[in-house]
Each structure stands twice: as structure tokens, then as C-alpha cells.
């Protein structure tokens, strides 16, 4: 398609085709080598090392309490709603954005789902499904609203989502009268305590979200466009990518993920948790950043987010088991976070020097 007319001068072509064959043969080998090298020097690899060291240290310090299946199960369960939101946040941040509203949107979806199931007054699988759909829709509405403000009204993401951070929580308080809704169908509570294959449903859902999110990010055109938009939105626009529509989609996704996390939280605690999510967004952004996703957009890996979410979760758990003052956990995570972002900067700088 590129050579519709005329042909190139002979000498150049022959010379070039010889090297092409050689280079192409090398390419497969090089691809393998580069991928391995890239994987080993990536931020997720460093952070996996950090996580591994934490697990080993805590296991040595408290061999009877820390490295047990029940403890691991609890750590994973408690991190699951955060993980769901972090998967969506990874997309948003790779695209160069931020979503500060997720904690409030979670609470909003939390309240809507509980209220809807309450209004239905029934207690069967259908009730739970309707509740789930209500939670997803409630989250999606706020996400879409964020996306529209950012793409159509050109309000920066930080301001938009700071606004909806307050607004979503306010509306949730208005709807619930400020009181946690505790009338949750027994079907949902039973679902929360069921453990197919030894692990709670909540964990399975988070795992599916993580795997699907990772595959779509790294394997598909949608994922690729997310990177391009974060790396250079103007380049994306000129390449014919509908940047606004894509960004709108990402914020909607983030809202829906918060909605799903809200439903998971409702399943786990059998009550709405209106006051309990003000710091969720910090944990989520921290996790995504620890995992090596650039704060400037354009790069990041889903596996990094998985590792990043579990570093603070493991620290908290290990510190409590060690009977360390919980404030130390904040100190340690804080320094690890700064270290991780410094690493990202260092890479960037060395790359630009090259």
C-alpha cells in the first residue's frame, strides 16, 4: 500500500533487503531478550522484590501468625475492593488522568445498592443481581459525569474529581439521611461468607477484574490507545483516535469499578460504610504509583498495580501482628512510595539523556 507508484533505485533496495532478512531473524531473539531484560529492570520487578522481602521478614518475625493461610486470606479479602478500583485507576493514570472521587462514588453506589435492595423487599438471587446492577449504574453515572466535565467542559481532572469527591458523598448522605443502611438481604450476606475453592467470592470477583483489566490493557487496541493518549494526546488526536470519547470511557470505567467495589464492600460488611472510604483514593493511587505507573501518564503495567496494592496491605497486617504502632505503617509506606516515584523519575531522566 505504501508503494503504489514507481520503484526505488535498485542498489538501495538490494542492499537493504539483505539486511532486512538478517535483522528480522534477529528480531524474534531480540524480542525475547529485551522483554526479559525489560521485565527484570521494571518498577514492578523492584516492587515485587520489596513485597517479597516484606513477606519473608514478617514470616521470620512471627512464624506462627503471619505466614498462615487464614491471615493471607484476610489480607487479600480486605484489599479486594481497593484492587478493583486500582485496576480502573491504572487505566485513568496511564491516560494521564486522576480520579479522586472513587471513594465517594463507592459510598454512593454502596448506599444506592442497599436502598434499591431494601425497596425491593425481596431476598433472593434476583434482588442481589438488581442491587449489583444498581451499584454499577450508580458508579457509572458519576464516572460519566466526571468524564463529561473533563472532556466537554475542559475542567481539569483534579478539580472535576475533587468536586465529585464531595458531591457524591453529599448525595449519598442526602439519600441515606447520613445513616448507614444496614438492611442487607441475607442472600448477599451468605454470598459474602461463601468461599468457593477456599476463597471468598469477593476475592474471585477482584481477581477476574484484575485479569480482564490486564489483558485488555496489554493486548488490545483499547489498551494501546490508553497509552498513546497518556503519552501524547495530540499525537493520538492526529492519528484519528477519538481522545475525548476514550477518556470519557475511562472515567466511566473508573466509576463503574468504584460501583463494583461498593457492592463488594456491602457484601463483605453487610452494611454501607459511609464514613470508611475517605482515604481509599489515597491507598489506590499509592498502590498504582508503587506499581510503577507513571504519574505523568503513558506508562504502567497491571501487574505493578497488583503488587503496589499489596505492599501497604502487607505492611499494615505485618505491623499489627508485630504489634508495631500503626503510625509506622504510614511512615514506611510513605517512604516506599517516594522511593518508587523517584525510581520512575530516575528512569525518565536517564532515558532522556540517552
Amino acid at each position, binding site marked *: 500500500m505504501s508503494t503504489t507508484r514507481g520503484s526505488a533505485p535498485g542498489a538501495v533496495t538490494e542492499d537493504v533487503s539483505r539486511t532486512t532478512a538478517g535483522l528480522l531473524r534477529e528480531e524474534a531473539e531480540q524480542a525475547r531478550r529485551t522483554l526479559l531484560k525489560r521485565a527484570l529492570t521494571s518498577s514492578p520487578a523492584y516492587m515485587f522484590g520489596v513485597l517479597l522481602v516484606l513477606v519473608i521478614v514478617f514470616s521470620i518475625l512471627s512464624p506462627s501468625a503471619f505466614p498462615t493461610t487464614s491471615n493471607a486470606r484476610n489480607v487479600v479479602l480486605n484489599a479486594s475492593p481497593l484492587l478493583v478500583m486500582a485496576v480502573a485507576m491504572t487505566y485513568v493514570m496511564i491516560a494521564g488522568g486522576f480520579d479522586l472521587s472513587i471513594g465517594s462514588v463507592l459510598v454512593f453506589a454502596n448506599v444506592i445498592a442497599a436502598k434499591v435492595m431494601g425497596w425491593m423487599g425481596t431476598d433472593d438471587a434476583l434482588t442481589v443481581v438488581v442491587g449489583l446492577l444498581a451499584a454499577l449504574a450508580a458508579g457509572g453515572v458519576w464516572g460519566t459525569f466526571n468524564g463529561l466535565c473533563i472532556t466537554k467542559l475542559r475542567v481539569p481532572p483534579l478539580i472535576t474529581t475533587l468536586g465529585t469527591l464531595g458531591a457524591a458523598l453529599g448525595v449519598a448522605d442526602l439519600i441515606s439521611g*447520613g445513616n*448507614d443502611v444496614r438492611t442487607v438481604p441475607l442472600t448477599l450476606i451468605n454470598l459474602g461468607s461463601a468461599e468457593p475453592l477456599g476463597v471468598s467470592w469477593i476475592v474471585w470477583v477482584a481477581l477476574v477484574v484484575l485479569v480482564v483489566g490486564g489483558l485488555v490493557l496489554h493486548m488490545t487496541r483499547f489498551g494501546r490507545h490508553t497509552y498513546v493518549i497518556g503519552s501524547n494526546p495530540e499525537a493520538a488526536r492526529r492519528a484519528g483516535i477519538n481522545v475525548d470519547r476514550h477518556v470519557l470511557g475511562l472515567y466511566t470505567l473508573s466509576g463503574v469499578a468504584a460501583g463494583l467495589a461498593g457492592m463488594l464492600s456491602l457484601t463483605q460488611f453487610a452494611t454501607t460504610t459511609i464514613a470508611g472510604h475517605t482515604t481509599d483514593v489515597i491507598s489506590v493511587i499509592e498502590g498504582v504509583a508503587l506499581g510503577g505507573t507513571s504519574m505523568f501518564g503513558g506508562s504502567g503495567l497491571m501487574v505493578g498495580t497488583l503488587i503496589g496494592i499489596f505492599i501497604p496491605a502487607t505492611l499494615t497486617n505485618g505491623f499489627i501482628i508485630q*504489634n508495631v504502632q500503626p503510625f509506622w505503617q504510614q511512615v514506611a509506606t510513605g517512604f516506599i512510595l517516594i522511593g518508587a516515584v523517584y525510581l520512575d523519575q530516575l528512569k525518565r531522566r536517564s532515558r532522556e539523556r540517552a
Partner: protein
Amino acid sequence: MTRRLRMGVPLCALAVAAIAAGCGSSSSSSKASSSSGASSSAGSSGSSGKTYHVVYIPGLTGNPFYSTVACGAKSVAPQMHVKFSVQGAPTFAVNAQTPVVNAVTATHPDAIMISNDDPKGMIPPLLQAQRAGIKIVNIDGDLAEKSVGVTNIQSDNAYGGQLAGQAMGKLIGGKGTVAIIDNDPGFPISEARVAGFMQAMKQYPGVKVLGVQYSHNETSNAASIVSSTAAAHPDFAGVYTVETNNTEGAITGARDAHVVGKLKIVGYDTSDPIVKGIQDGTVSADIVQYPYGEGQVGLQSAVKAIQGQSVPREQTQPFVVATKANVNTANVQRFIYKTSC
């Protein structure tokens, strides 16, 4: 150089983690040794000579009320052969407290004393703990499921609210506008305090009570609520502050709006600035609970339960209404919170 730097950063962060973990374990072991050292002065319950491990999980960390509970428990721990420690989350929420309970359960203490963040949401993790053979003592916040936990020790928050309402009605002479400042909506304890207050205010039909305003536990928010309400309502006569930070904020707000003395502040719970406010008259009345006693009774109940003795399921603790007139008396001082011990 670059390579070393790159490796250095996560490692240095890890070092912080390791140091923290190290301090923690050494301090807890020293605690353990000091309590066993005090075993010569063994109390009535220490007949077996065994050291019990009891953990207190407050509603949130850094709160004077909960710190005082911890102090109370700590004061009786040595004589009861208890290795006592405190673990908590920085926010008051079920999803923040659950991971703490999970992790504490993993260490298998003999008993957990807990100020629950949610009467229903905290059931599953505590049930897990109870099934693992850990005795649960609820302090200032019971569970909806009474089979979880051997006892609940708390003061009657609705009654405390009523006391606050009665004090307010008298202070403002039954007329004027009254504001209420609470932390956040959705917490049964503060709601009971507000409900009790409203109940008492019914006896004063001449008082206009504004809706509850929320400070999100921020002193500065409480201060601006007070100063702006003072500007909006010339007959602003009193403010009922439902938690510590709100009372502290109201003191500042009253100063900012130049209504000290004219505006009657009735608070709930104390701290050092609030005690000072009572002494200089900025705070007219304050409902003081007895968390120190709750902590003592809590630990005693925990040890009894561990030893298989029976404990009443409900235990209450007294209140005192502190005013400028009585704040320096021994009777009131006994109630005042102690944040460090």
C-alpha cells in the same frame, strides 16, 4: 552509581520498615518483661501465674477517649498478669477496623477488647476471632449480635445527651438559637447523643434548634461553623458539640466571632484544651464519660472471661457534668481523660 542508587531507594525504604518492625517487637517484649516483673504484686486473679495476652482495638487511633480506655486498662494490667497492647486504625470505619481485627486475631491473643466501629459490620471478623477461642470484650460500642462478646461496657449516650440538653436549656434561659455540631453522619453513638439532646430540648419550646451540622472531625470546620452561625443568627445562644474536636473548634470559633461568654458551649468528651476552656468559662458545661474506668473494668472482665468466670453481658459506667464550678474538684478530675500513661 546509578545502579547503586536505583537499588538503594527501595532498600532504604525497606530499612525504615524493618527498623519499625524491630522497634515494635522489642518494645512489646520489654512490655511483657516489665509486666512479669510486676508479678510479685499479683492481684486476686493471677493465681495461675500465667501471663495473658490482651489487645485493645480502639474505634480509631489518636482519640483521647480511647487513649484513656487504654490507660485505664494498662493501669491494672501488671497486677493481673496481662501483657497488654493497643492496635487500631486511623479512621473510624468498619472497613478500616476489620483488617486490624483480622491481623490481631492472627496473633492469637487470649482476649480482644474492642470499641466497635459498627454494630453489624464488625460481627464477622469478631465471630472469626471468637471461634478461634479469643474472648471478646466490647467497650463503648456493642454489636447487634449479643452472642459475640462476653460483655459490653459503655455509658448511656442518650442519657448523656439528655444531660447536655438540660444543661443547655438552663444556661440559655430557654430561648435563642442553638446549633449542633457532630463529626459525620451515620454513627449510632453520636446519634444517640444528639437524640438525647433533642429530647431534653423539647422542654424548651422557646429554643430554636438548627439542624445538625457536620465537621468531619475537623477542628477548623467546627470553628467556622460556629463563627458563621454567629454571623447569621443574632440570637445564637448555644452550641452543642458532640465530640472532642468540635468542642475545641467551637472554642476557637467563639473567640473568632467575639461571642465568648455570650455563646454557651456545651460539649461532650474532654481534652486538655476543653478542660482549660471549662476553667476559664469559655466552655459552660461538658459531659465527661469515664473511659478510664471502662478500660479497667474491660480488662478485668477479659481476664475473668479467660479464666472461665461469668461476666455480666451489660455493664455501664457513670458520667459527670463538668462546669467551671466543679471542674477542679477531685470527683470531676477523676473522670478527666488521660491521653498519656
